[in-house]
Structures are given as C-alpha cells and as structure tokens.
C-alpha cells in the first residue's frame, strides 16, 4: 500500500537550503564539541600568565621542547621511509597472511604504550632478543638514549601513517600506472613519478598524524628510554614530572604543546585531513 502524497496547503514550505537541522543530532554534536573544548579552556583558565615567560624561557623547558621536536621529526621521517613501502605491500601485493601482517603492524596503535615500551625493551634492550647481539658486537645499547626515544616513538606512530597511506594506495586509479608503463617507464620509475605524487595527500595526512602521535608519546618512551633531561625527557615527560612538583610549569608546558599541535592541524586541516572539497585528480 502506498500512502498518497499530500501537499499541505497550510504549512509554508521552506527552501531546501534553509531546512531545519535535526535537533537531537545538533545537540549531541554540540556536547561533543564542548567535551573537547572544556579541558583546554580549563588549562587557559588556570594558567599562571604572569610567570609564563620565565617558565617558557627556562632552560629545562627549552631543552625538553627541543628534544621533543627533534625526536618527533626523526620518527616521522623513519615512519615515512619504512611505512610507505609497508603500506604499498599491504595495499598492492596479495600474499598469504596479509590480514595477519596488517594486524601485527598496526597493533602498537591500539596497545597501551607502556606495553609497547616493555616489549621494545625485551627486543632491543641490552639483554633483549636482538639487543644482546647489538650490545655484544658494538657495545651500543638503545634504551635510555635519544635514539631509544626515536625508536619508541616510531613504533607507536608508524601505524597511523601506514593506515592513511594504505588507504591512499587502495583508492588510487592504477590505470595511470599502466599508462606510465606503456610509455616506457619501469616499475620503479612509475612508482616515483606517478604513484607517489598521486598518494601525496594521504601521505601528508598520515605523516602529520604520525608526527602528532610521536610528539605526544609518553608511555613507551618513559618505559623504554627513561626520563633523563636533555637526553630522553621529552615534553610529555617533562609535563608529567612538573605536574608533581610545579603545576604552574606543567600548565604552561602543556599549553605550548597544545599550541604547536593545534597550529599544525589547522594549517593542514581541510587540504589533507579529509575535510573540505575532494581533491581534484
């Protein structure tokens, strides 16, 4: 049975563009926005603005900030160098156990970071599975070094890049690669000149997410690399310590970290992070 369409003669019909939004959706969305905004407003409200400058310019804060940026950029670079080929393999090469490999390579994203740190320790530590040989042959031990921070950050951040780039590889129109091949391009040349430019938006998005994750990394870092100012004490670690000793300093350091992350997300917002209009191909 179909209901006859009735055209109401009393109600005034609005233009489609000005149709009212569904109230429950709108209300819940506003609650969600408030939920994200309130903690930051709380920080701003509690911030000791008069001391801000002296905290900012204190050697401890500057060291931690410099180390954080240094390590997070390094781990983003490593995640890109290894993550792009990994994403390509997962997206383009059908091999047995691909689903398992994908789960394994993204596990550290959902793992508690402390667990990641412990696991890294038993793999790369002085007595670890691989680390013992590294130490025996070279005398070098990764834990409690700046390199250890970079390894810990890369371990938890790379999955973000892999997931974004794999999706980009999957969505790509592979016929462009075929066109390149018919023009005489080898597989490697095609990858560099055709495939990589085509996945650039996904790559940038993935790199930004990985970088943000690395910048905020705490649990794996403190477990695997410890908390030595100037060597392994990144911003999140410094904030954690400061919060015990001098909450004012913790607030200012937090605000710096928030400002940097927010600035990057806003700068890249619609272009690469899925918002705005679709990319022209």
């Amino acid at each position, binding site marked *: 049975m179909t209901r006859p369409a009735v055209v109401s003669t009393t109600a005034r019909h609005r233009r489609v563009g000005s149709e009212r939004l569904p109230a429950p959706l709108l209300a819940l969305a506003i609650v969600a926005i408030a939920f994200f905004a309130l903690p930051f407003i709380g920080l701003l409200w509690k911030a000791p603005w008069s001391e801000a400058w002296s905290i900012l310019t204190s050697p401890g804060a500057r060291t931690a900030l410099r180390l954080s940026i240094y390590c997070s950029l390094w781990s983003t670079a490593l995640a890109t160098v290894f993550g792009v080929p990994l994403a390509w393999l997962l997206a383009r090469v059908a091999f047995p156990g691909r689903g398992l490999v994908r789960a394994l390579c993204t596990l550290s994203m959902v793992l508690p970071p402390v667990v990641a740190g412990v696991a890294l320790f038993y793999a790369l530590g002085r007595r670890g599975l691989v680390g013992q040989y590294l130490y025996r042959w070279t005398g070098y031990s990764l834990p409690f070094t700046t390199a250890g921070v970079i390894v810990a950050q890369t371990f938890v951040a790379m999955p973000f890049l892999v997931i974004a780039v794999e999706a980009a590889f999957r969505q790509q129109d592979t016929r*462009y690669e075929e*066109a*390149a*091949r*018919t*023009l005489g*391009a080898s597989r490697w040349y095609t990858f560099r*000149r*055709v495939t990589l*430019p085509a996945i650039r938006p996904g790559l940038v998005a993935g790199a930004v997410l990985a970088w943000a994750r690395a910048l905020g990394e705490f649990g794996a870092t403190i477990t695997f690399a410890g908390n030595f100012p100037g060597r392994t004490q990144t911003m999140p670690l410094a904030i954690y310590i400061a919060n015990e000793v001098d909450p004012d300093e913790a607030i200012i350091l937090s605000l710096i970290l928030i400002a940097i992350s927010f600035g990057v997300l806003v700068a890249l917002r619609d272009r690469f992070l899925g918002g705005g209009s679709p990319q022209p191909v």
Partner: protein
Amino acid sequence: MTLEARLVRTLGRFELDVELEAKPGEVVALLGPNGAGKSTAFRCLAGLLPLDGGRITLDGAPLDDPGADVFVPPDERPVGVVFQDYLLFPNLTALENVAFGLRARGLARSEARARAGSWLERVGLGDHAGHRPRALSGGQAQRVALARALATEPRLLLLDEPLAALDVGTRGGVRRDLRRHLTTFDGMRLLVTHDPVDAYALADRVVILEAGRVAQTGTLAEVTARPRSRYIADLLGTNLLRGEGRGGALVLVTGAGVVAAEPVTGPTFAVVPPSAVALYLTQPVGSPRNVWPSRVVDVDQQTDRVRVRLEGPVPLVAEITAAALAELALQAGDRVWAAVKATEIATYPA
C-alpha cells in the same frame, strides 16, 4: 613489418581467442559490443595482461609467447597507447606529459622537453605546453595523449575508444582531427571501439568481435553487406538467421524451416529485412512461402514506423506502419502470424 597475433586469454568465465593482423600504414578497428573482449585484446597487445596461449609478434619479434616462455613487459614494447580517458598525469603539464616517455627512457630533461615541444606543435597545441590536463578540453587532452604516445616512436599505436570520453557536440570535429593525425603516423594502428561511426571514419578494415571470437573481418562496407554477427545485424536494424540448408530450405536450430529465393545447402546465413515481415491476426493463405505463428514481445513506436519484436520458431523484428498497428491493436503477449515472401530473403554461406 606487420603485427601478427593470436590472443588467447581466460578471465574468469570469459574466454578470448582471436586472431589479428595489421600491416604498416593500416588502421584496423576492433569493433564489438561491450563484453566482447575488445578491452582484453587491447590489454594483451599493450602488455598489461599476459596471454594464456597464442602469440604476438611485431615485425617478426615475439612480444608475448607463453609457449616459448617469452613475455616482453609493457615498458619494453614498441607499442604506443592512447587510453579511453586519456589518463594524462594530472600533476604534470601537457609538455611534461608528452616528455614523460622520453624521460623514462633516459633522455636528458632538456632534450626530452625540446622533442615534446615539437610533438605538441605537430598536434597544434604548442601554446598549451604549460597547461595542466585539468585546463584542457576533451579534444585537446586527446591530442596530448596522442602526442605522448607517438613521442616514444612506437611501431604499433593502440587507441582505446578514443572518442568515447567526448560529448556528442565535439566528437565530429575531434574525429576529423584524429583522422588527420593518424595518417601522419606510418606504423600500424589498432583502434578499439564500440561505435561503428568511429570505425567507418578512422579504419581501413574492421574486425568484429563477439563473445571473445572474431565474428567477421573486412571493410565496413563488406561487413555490412553480408553481416555474420548479431551485433552487426542489430546495428543495421535487420534480422539475421543462421541455420543449415536441408532440401533447399534453411532449417533453424528451433526446427523451423525458412524458404529463401535461392535453394541453400550447408551452414547458411539469411537476412530478413524487418519491412518484409507482414503480420496477420489469423493464419493467412496466399503466396508467401514463409508463415510462422509468433507472439509479440514488445512494440517500439518510432514516429511513423513501429518495430514489433516477435518470438516463436523464427525470432524476428517486423516493421509496420503506425496505422497498421492501430488497426491490429497489437500488444505484448498477443498471438500473431508472421509472413515473409521467399524473394525478400537473402542468403549466403555461413
């Protein structure tokens, strides 16, 4: 100096098995409905899909020969390809697109750009060198794609539905341009299309593909004079029957007999023009040698003519006038008698 190919390839339940040949300077069109295997054949020739059987040789050199374990990858084949949507690299300018193949082959950047520039001049787009594909019209994009394919100096040029991406308004002009540019290339040219107008305008010879097999080859005039495929018969809007000559009459697989002007023997095609099919509500008695009971499947009215599709021992399309339709008041499902004079039926060996 020719292309000789027997392409055998299975894709799921689809099986391609066709023989193709092209001589230098010749334009061959691979014509057929969707799903006939045109794209598969095209991909095999370009090296994007390896053969299961058969062999491709170009100027005597094997490109793909599974029997001898030979497969030349696409980037090493002297084959240029113009794809259906042209597939110009969106991040490169027109000039960089044309230079791409030359750069990929190791030519220095300045040399590649100089040659690409002269190719763009040749297709009349010298002043569009710096444009991105997005800023080009469909016809311009096609010419850039052609220049890009020809810049690598292939022996064989493949074009996949070169006009399908264009709207009807611009197609005619672009087709003329393409024809002009194709004549300047002295290698072999193979065109894949589902549009007989393109085949007629651009090709010297057509190969009709149907269900993965070659149904017919020849000039378009030869092919249409004696259709040997349902596809061509449908294009011409005529009825094509196939059967076995027995006792002078043509016997179809349904068992129905068709009497033609000439007695026939062996496997035979018969063409029955729709305008020669007369419809009656009761069984007619008279001179027509062929009278079959039929059922109306559908009625398609085109201004003053009406095409009535029939099923029965002899499936036919009848063309009658609108006045006749009104008088007979035919509807889908109605039972009628179809009559055709033997002299209206042309036959030729299958």
